[in-house]
């Protein structure tokens, strides 16, 4: 019986660790998609000049970032249920959506360039944090799980 409880505790601990580690991956993936989209829209504005909804309809990616942005252009409201972005990052995302597409080509070009710099920074921070904490959380969760297992014995 104790062995079974120990195994259950080990599994729960590892799952919690993986869940926490996943947040770092999701955050990095979010900024990765965000930066990609910024590059796509930069190219679109200077070349084919399609509208953003048309552009989005040609993108098949449906991760959290694209789900949110597609919903924004369909329902015209911002909704992003995030467990991995802080309020400052959420606000940055919201401001981006409110500004993108709302002015002429030249102004948009400048805006996108400046957003691109900020996004590169955010992506590198997110990547760094993922590398730093993802394996740490998993190792810690395994360790805590093992300790719980041993205590149970």
């Amino acid at each position, binding site marked *: 019986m104790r062995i079974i409880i120990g195994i259950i505790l080990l599994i729960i601990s590892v799952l919690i660790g993986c869940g926490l580690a996943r947040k770092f991956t999701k955050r990095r993936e979010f900024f990765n998609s965000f930066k990609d989209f910024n590059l796509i829209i930069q190219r679109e*504005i200077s070349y084919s*000049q*399609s*509208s*953003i*909804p*048309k552009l989005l309809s040609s993108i098949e990616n449906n991760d959290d970032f694209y789900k949110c942005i597609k919903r924004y*252009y369909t329902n015209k409201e911002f909704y992003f249920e995030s467990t991995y972005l802080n309020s400052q990052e959420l606000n940055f995302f919201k401001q981006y959506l409110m500004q*993108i*597409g*709302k*002015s*002429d*080509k*030249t*102004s*948009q070009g400048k805006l996108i360039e400046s957003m691109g710099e900020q996004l590169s920074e955010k992506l590198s921070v997110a990547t760094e944090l993922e590398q730093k904490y993802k394996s740490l959380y998993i190792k810690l969760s395994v360790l805590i799980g093992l300790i719980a297992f041993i205590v149970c014995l």
Partner: protein
Amino acid sequence: MSLDFLPINILTSLQKLNLDKLYEIRLRKDYPIKVCYEGIYRYLSKNGVTILATESIICNQQDIENIINNVTEQSIYAYNEEIKNGYITTVNGIRIGLGGDCVYDNNGLVTLKNFRSLNIRIAHVIKNCSYKIFERIVLNNEIQSTLIISPPFYGKTTILKDLATQINNRYNYPLLIIDERGEFYSISGENIDAIRYSDKYFAFNNGLRALSPRIIITDELITESDWLCAKSVVDSGVKIIASCHAKNMEQLTGKKYFLNSIFDKYIVLNNYGFIDGGFTIYNKDFTVQ
């Protein structure tokens, strides 16, 4: 006709009207919304139209911004060339005139911003409205180069659209529509080619070479370049049907860029909101036909 780019309160009021009789919606920031309904300007109210300003719906800045965002699909950059010309056209051919502040840089006009007034022109397709005109511009089974003349809002574009359909149905040769503002969006046919959202210089020159039309239809000859393009088309043996803003022949011939060697017929529309009638036809030598 889809007006779903309008804010819901305005759309709800308009749904109480017969949209076939609606020609124009005018929105000005902080002022009552006016509509041209059955040829008369009245205020838009919650229950339809009214003559009382006190019952009217007041337009606010948010309404104007929402309309611009909806029509441009929140992508103003994609419509900037149109905006620079003072209008945007919705996907179904409704033209929206823009009032706002012009922004210039060293290279000229960059864009318009701070939009404060909109003039929404409701495009209509009225079947056979050009029938009487069509009969008078055909000579020996050949369409004559024709200029349709009137002040704004007399139905020139509606007539041109119907003429395009008539020609497509009756003649078996290529017709090119040069549609600078996307207003001929609803017109298509087995003989019809269209160049849209292009300036006339490009469209005339490239359309003539690439699409080999027998007839060209275009709206509003305004600039010297427009008139010269029209002349070069006629000199190439192609017929042209166009329109021009003027009240009468005196005003037309007094225009700086007017060239009298282009058109065989001049049709002066006499009635505001035309469609059912009055026009005068002039021959090449400006005598009444």
